[in-house]
């Protein structure tokens, strides 16, 4: 669309722009045709351009960056980034990436939700009519009251939603409100780190296995295993720290099926590996390290448990130890590089060389990306990587790294501190199993990972989905989810609260327009790393009739008669932001940070605590494991886990093992669907956020990446439109034929918006029409990268 030079630099042209572009809605014109009117705010207060510093709107982005937002006449006219002088490694500038820099195209997108909408067609059909906020609140009030009365609070579910992390925008206010009204069904775990969240503590007793990132500069050897920080943004500046580590002399190796942006920009060597076989290569590395006596025996003896028969936990003395598995003592299969070569497609000599390098060039980092744990046996990969760190003794030392999740030692960011209160409903489901809780909630108990109760007492009957595209877009097997949601006898009421009519919002009965994070007050801190807190002030007025998530909940609280409790005596967004900074951050993580009033007045946007002496995880433990034991049953690093052993499940072995995935190129399914498909986190967006941003999409269009060998076999040329399909569904997208992905693997960047055509084929290119709802054995997590597909040239 030719938005051209008539930008919103002045009021008149902005209105013109709105009017022109208002009707172009991703081919869904019908929705807004009748109800669109141009934005008509009150008179501008000032003509001077102001610069306001704020945090980059926190979606579920791994980065947290500083923006300098130019505002004129109440309109954002330019977005720059951190330019604080110094840019020292202890406190580097928090420079925003393409996502933050293109934010105006999201903020002023013509498709922003403008008014509350009520469904008129069938559910999922996407037909809505405009209603007033009063009507919308009335519906919400009636439905919530009815479901509580008819079924009880546990039938209400506020799903996983990561679209907003500024405390006042996002799902937490709604959780607070529901908790005041008797609670709602809870969940635990996440879609991002499902397997590592659960597996890491079985090894280390904690998730805080990482050093502060400045410590990478002390490393001599860094393995980026399936890790792509330059693209997914695993913390602002992570890629820059790796650059500095290399300049300090570290050798870097990237192991990934794709020649990723990080493999190009950060690695000295790239090793392509068949997806889902990481644990095989890790085991073969362990074989080389053990047989060539490159292990850190002293560390193993003092700090590990279950390495060999001499240190098995009580009651498991005769079980297979980690070493037994690696050497093949029990199963007769030594996990040699030659064994792994056939599985991983990595040459045996390379595996052996990387093993030797990792074990001898110390201190070394083995950093595990998250994509490889979003797989059928993701738990095994996490634990196999941690085992390598352990047997080489790269733990508890500067420049080392314990692997596992790697949240930073010395305290990780809080993410959300908005007090949502105690949930009177004790039941919690694994986050990934919410569709199960719709269709068979009452049958679900601990076997399905349910916590807090012996059995759920309800199926989910009401969904209130906030800042979340999980209902359709981001959950596996979209066609299955869509069928479940379409059935109004299952979930009886769905409300979606967002900035756009997302694929999830298309399935709502009621759509509530939330404002963006530029339009309300908020506080955000780091994602996984970082020592900073951002104050995100209200920079512009909410567009149209949109409101902050907090305001919507507060208005509803009034109807329910709990306004006073909900607002803690009348706090608005700003008052909460003040409370969060003064009462939470200044009293916990950052006592020395300026008070809210000062921070606001200074227009700094951020408080940063410089890191000059990075904290090293497990340093004390390494020195004296008896005095500083881990929170594992043995107090040590558990290469063999007794609790896992007691689960007595072949899919949950007590020592980390390579297990062939349930959909694999080695299985029978490969005859019909010979290609592995992965869906990497794409540069232009954060999950599904920014998919409709024209600047990021111009720079990085949605494509299917395919190796030339695979393309040639199918007579597919670069730029052709292709259909990717398996038994669960099909999508259509443009094909980018490239040498930057290994043969046998295609990559469909995740997060594209699901846009089914009449035949039900997704034209948006969403990988989740192909993924499976099956969950992993231990974590009950999402295995969304474990799928087999076929690709053909699309006709039609």
């Amino acid at each position, binding site marked *: 669309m030719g938005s051209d030079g008539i930008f919103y630099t002045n009021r008149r042209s902005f209105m013109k722009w709105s009017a022109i572009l208002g009707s172009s809605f991703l081919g869904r014109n019908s929705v807004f045709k009748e109800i669109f009117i141009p934005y008509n705010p009150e008179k501008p207060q000032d003509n001077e351009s102001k610069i306001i510093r704020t945090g980059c709107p926190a979606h579920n982005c791994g980065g947290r960056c500083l923006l300098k937002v130019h505002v004129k006449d109440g309109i954002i006219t330019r*977005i720059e980034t951190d330019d604080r002088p110094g840019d020292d490694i202890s406190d580097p500038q928090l420079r925003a*990436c393409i996502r933050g820099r293109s934010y105006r195209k999201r903020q002023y997108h013509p498709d922003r939700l403008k008014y509350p909408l009520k469904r008129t067609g069938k559910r999922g059909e996407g037909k809505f009519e405009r209603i007033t906020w009063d009507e919308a609140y009335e519906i919400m009030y009636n439905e919530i009251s009815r479901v509580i009365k008819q079924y009880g609070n546990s039938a209400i579910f506020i799903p996983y939603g990561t679209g907003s992390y500024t405390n006042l925008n996002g799902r937490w206010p709604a959780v607070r409100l529901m908790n005041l009204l008797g609670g709602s069904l809870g969940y635990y775990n996440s879609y991002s780190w499902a397997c590592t969240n659960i597996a890491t503590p079985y090894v280390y007793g904690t998730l805080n296995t990482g050093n502060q990132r400045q410590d990478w500069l002390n490393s001599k050897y860094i393995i980026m295993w399936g890790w792509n920080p330059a693209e997914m943004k695993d913390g602002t500046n992570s890629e820059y720290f790796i650059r500095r580590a290399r300049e300090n002399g570290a050798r870097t190796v990237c192991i990934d099926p794709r020649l990723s942006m990080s493999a190009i920009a950060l690695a000295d060597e790239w090793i392509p590996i068949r997806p889902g076989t990481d644990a095989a290569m890790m085991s073969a590395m362990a074989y080389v390290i053990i047989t060539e006596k490159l292990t850190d025996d002293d560390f193993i003896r003092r700090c590990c448990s279950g390495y060999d028969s001499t240190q098995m936990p009580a009651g498991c003395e005769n079980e297979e130890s980690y070493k037994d598995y690696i050497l093949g003592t029990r199963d007769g299969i030594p996990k040699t590089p030659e064994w792994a070569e056939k599985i991983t497609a990595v040459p*045996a000599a390379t595996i052996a060389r990387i093993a030797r390098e990792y074990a001898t060039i110390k201190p070394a980092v083995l950093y595990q990306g998250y994509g490889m744990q979003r797989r059928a046996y993701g738990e095994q990969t996490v634990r196999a990587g941690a085992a390598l760190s352990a047997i080489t003794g790269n733990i508890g030392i500067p420049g080392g790294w314990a692997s596992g999740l790697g949240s930073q030692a010395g305290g990780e960011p809080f993410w959300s501190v908005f007090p949502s209160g105690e949930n009177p409903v004790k039941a919690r489901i694994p986050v990934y199993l919410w569709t199960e809780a719709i269709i068979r909630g009452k049958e679900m108990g601990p076997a399905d990972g349910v916590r807090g109760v012996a059995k759920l007492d309800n199926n989910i009957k009401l969904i209130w989905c906030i800042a979340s595209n999980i209902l359709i877009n981001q959950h596996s097997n979209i066609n299955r989810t869509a069928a479940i949601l379409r059935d109004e006898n299952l979930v009886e009421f769905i409300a979606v609260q967002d900035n756009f009519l997302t694929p999830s919002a298309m399935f709502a009965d009621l759509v509530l327009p939330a404002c963006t994070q530029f339009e309300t007050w908020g506080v955000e801190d780091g994602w996984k790393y970082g020592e900073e807190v951002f104050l995100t002030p209200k920079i512009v007025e909410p567009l149209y009739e949109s409101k902050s998530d907090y305001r919507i909940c507060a208005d509803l609280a009034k109807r329910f008669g709990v306004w006073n409790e909900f607002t803690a005596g009348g706090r608005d967004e700003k008052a909460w932001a003040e409370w969060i900074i003064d009462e939470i951050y200044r009293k916990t993580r950052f006592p020395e940070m300026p008070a809210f009033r000062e921070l606001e007045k200074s227009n700094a946007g951020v408080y940063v605590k410089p890191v000059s002496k990075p904290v090293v995880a497990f340093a004390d433990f390494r020195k004296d494991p008896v005095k500083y034991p881990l929170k594992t049953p043995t107090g040590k690093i558990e290469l063999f886990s007794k609790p896992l052993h007691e689960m007595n499940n072949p899919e949950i072995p007590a020592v980390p093992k390579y297990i062939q995935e349930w959909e694999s190129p080695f299985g029978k399914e490969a005859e019909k669907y010979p290609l592995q498909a992965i869906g990497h986190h794409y540069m232009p967006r954060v999950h599904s956020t920014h998919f409709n941003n024209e*600047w990021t999409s111009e720079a990085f269009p949605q494509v299917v990446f395919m190796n030339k060998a695979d393309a040639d076999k199918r007579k597919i040329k*670069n730029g052709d439109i292709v259909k990717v399909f398996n038994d669960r569904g099909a999508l259509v997208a443009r094909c980018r034929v*490239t040498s930057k992905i290994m043969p046998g693997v295609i990559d469909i960047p995740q997060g594209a918006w699901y846009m089914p055509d009449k035949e039900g084929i997704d034209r948006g290119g969403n990988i989740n029409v192909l993924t499976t709802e099956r969950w992993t054995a231990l974590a009950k997590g999402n295995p969304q990268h474990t799928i087999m597909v076929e690709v053909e040239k699309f006709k039609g």
Partner: protein
Amino acid sequence: MPEYAFYINSSACSGCKTCQVACKDKNDLPTGVNWRRVYEIEGGGWKEENGVFVSQPYGYFLSLSCQNCENPECVKACPTTAMHVNASGIVAVDSELCIGCRYCSWACPYGAPQYDQAKKVMTKCNLCEDYLSIGTKPSCVMSCPMRALDFGTWEEITSKYGTGENVFPLPDPSQYKPGIVIKPHRNSAMTRNDKAYIAENEYK
């Protein structure tokens, strides 16, 4: 010698295109007009032997805007003198004179002049002249999350980084004398014996 120079550390560039969009935001550029562009260069291939892969592909990125050549072909080609070297020594377009014939975009070997369909004139990087005048570096340089870009006078940049190397797919600089200093990615050496290509160009 050119007046100014961009320093481009291709070895550190991740291809994130933040510079490209920072430029669009600063200059209010529509989709399709990119005063700064990040090119994705790709080459090499795969050879499978006994189930393992022995040969490997390679890639690197180049972020380019306008090099403010000492011998600007665009200025020579322009029939109207709309494309000119302004008082600050910056190659600039006078949109009052420009007739939108796009001849400069043929002549420029770097793809710097960008046609704006709506305005019907050529547009191009102006080095953020307004920023330079207040002592700030161009928007793209300030945006780079990898700190892979720099800008200054030719003397400043070359004394800091040397004169760099010319890499595929850039033309022989001797004829244009571009204000650009490139620290090559190690992979650009591969293009000497292998036919590399610009990925986006192949794709479009």
